[in-house]
């Protein structure tokens, strides 16, 4: 990958930013951190099709942080909206109304509530049709905009406003990456805002490809995960160092892990910094649950191999 990238070093990252400031996202939003970096790499010729969620508050009349068009859809229908925009652009090109250089990248912007749950059917249909679009999910592991209810992306044992018991959420986080791979995507990658160089290279690569492409970004969320906004970067870094959030990509029929933590930090260090896992540490430490979470991460990396 390093040969055909313009991002060789962290110093090559863009020093001016396309996304306007003044948005209503929470202070310390890990999702906005990733979206801002991704927009810098994609450039201004980008149309965002936004499934309802936190990020739909980005563009509230008369204010927008974007440099171009933005379309708001319901939670279940963002890929259908993207299909309409892509078709319109194709028709304009076929009729000679726009030049190839004026063509635009169609990007769905969605949270995990939509991506892992109620938008999945329309998404699978768009992949079936081979829709040429990028699907960008900021995953804060719950329905954040409405008060962090459990979503299909919520990790095991996390407390949410609908999983308040001593055990937290009894289910397990859905593997959306593998679903996209199995469904026939042309490119799938996980990113995180605290690994900006890895992120920039993947966005650059995705932008050059055609077909259905997904970027799945973990989005540390001070409000929903219950921690101080200044810890957003540290929690993002720990997600990678503990192996909870593997940085990987699928291209040309193969899954590659881009950053294998050489010596993984114990998962506890990631969990104990977040209020949503506080019930695993007090009033009594729930060693069995903590060991379960650790062993699931260990099993994942054992299967990946070194």
């Amino acid at each position: 990958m390093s040969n055909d990238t313009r991002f060789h070093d962290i110093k090559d990252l863009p020093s001016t930013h396309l996304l306007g400031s003044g948005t209503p996202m929470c202070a310390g939003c890990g999702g906005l951190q990733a979206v801002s970096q991704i927009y810098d790499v994609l450039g201004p010729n980008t149309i965002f099709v936004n499934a309802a969620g936190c990020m739909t508050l980005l563009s509230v009349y008369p204010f927008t942080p974007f440099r171009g068009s933005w379309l708001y859809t319901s939670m279940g229908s963002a890929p259908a909206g993207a299909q309409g925009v892509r078709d319109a652009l194709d028709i304009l090109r076929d009729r000679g109304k726009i030049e190839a250089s004026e063509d635009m990248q169609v990007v769905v912007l969605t949270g995990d509530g939509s991506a892992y749950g109620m938008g999945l059917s329309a998404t699978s249909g768009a992949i079936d049709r081979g829709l040429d679009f990028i699907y960008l999910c900021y995953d804060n592991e719950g329905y954040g905009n409405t008060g962090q209810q459990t979503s299909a992306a919520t990790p095991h044992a996390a407390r949410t406003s609908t999983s308040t018991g001593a055990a937290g959420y009894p289910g397990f986080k859905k593997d959306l990456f593998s679903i996209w791979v199995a469904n026939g995507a042309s490119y799938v990658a996980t990113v995180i805002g605290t690994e900006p160089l890895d992120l920039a290279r993947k966005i650059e690569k995705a932008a050059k490809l055609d077909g259905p492409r997904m970027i799945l970004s973990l989005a540390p969320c001070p409000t929903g995960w219950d921690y101080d906004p200044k810890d957003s970067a540290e929690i993002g870094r720990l997600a990678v160092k503990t192996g909870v959030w593997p940085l990987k990509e699928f291209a040309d029929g193969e899954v590659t892990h881009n950053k294998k933590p050489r010596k993984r930090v114990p998962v506890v260090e990631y969990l104990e910094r977040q209020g949503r896992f506080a019930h695993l540490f007090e009033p009594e430490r729930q060693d069995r649950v903590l060991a379960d979470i650790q062993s699931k991460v260990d099993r994942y990396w054992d299967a990946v191999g070194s």
Partner: protein
Amino acid sequence: MYRIRFHGRGGQGIKTASRILGSALFAEGYEVQDAPRYGAERRGAPIFAYVRADRAPVYERGIIDHPDLVVVTDESLVQVPAAAVMTGLCDRSVLVIASAAEPELWQQRLGVTCRVLTLPPGPGEGAALMGAASVGAAAKLIGQISAANLEGAIRAELEGLPSDVIERNVGRALESFDSFESHAGCVSEGEALTRASATPPAWVELEVEPTSISAPAIRGEATSEQVQTGLWRTMRPVIDDSLCNHCSWICSTLCPDAAIDVGSDREPIIDYEHCKGCLLCVAVCPSHAIVVEPERAVDEHRSDP
């Protein structure tokens, strides 16, 4: 009728404070209405909460424009126009500001004649307990709430939280309750509002216009920059130039709000009009060149001659 207005920032427990005060008044036999009003609905953004209490049923609704008591849990809100802290204050109103400064200084600064009291934050006390402190103060100033009913309302509202959190809040509220003993009952009930006494909003009548004018195509880029999210901030990051290594690709890239610009010598420049004060840059700066200053200390520097 008592009309109480709380001003605070998201995350300070203002909504909870208004519910506790409402429940405590209810326990004293009042008819009560309490309602929060969120603006940006984000931690750090200005929010409001209203409590009405009367011996008769409360039919009045909406925003409180004629408060008997105003409680401000963050002094930096006073200068924020959108927070409208001063709205409707009159000579008989009571204004409580969470501040270490003297009440007389605030009276002078604000040019008001009403009673001003200050609620000094405890040593090393975070924003989290300001809600409890303010509800304790409000209960004593109204003078109709017993310590037992105040405590009962707090315990009922916070039920389910860890017991040390509940005890800290109860302790802080009761301490604040006792500290205002000399002003007990200084808040008086306001007059009933009539249709005749209501002031119409200052709206502008608009003619019906053709669609091409009234719904124009929006072509502005990044117009969100007109929104000053810097007003959300209670603490500000300040770069110490002597320590900064100009590795701005770190702080500028990681700032979630694109609020750190990069200068010609790759030096980072913080955009205080938009910085929300998350302080993520402070945490990631490799040379520890970014320090944190409370907003009011910054104001004091600015006013130095």
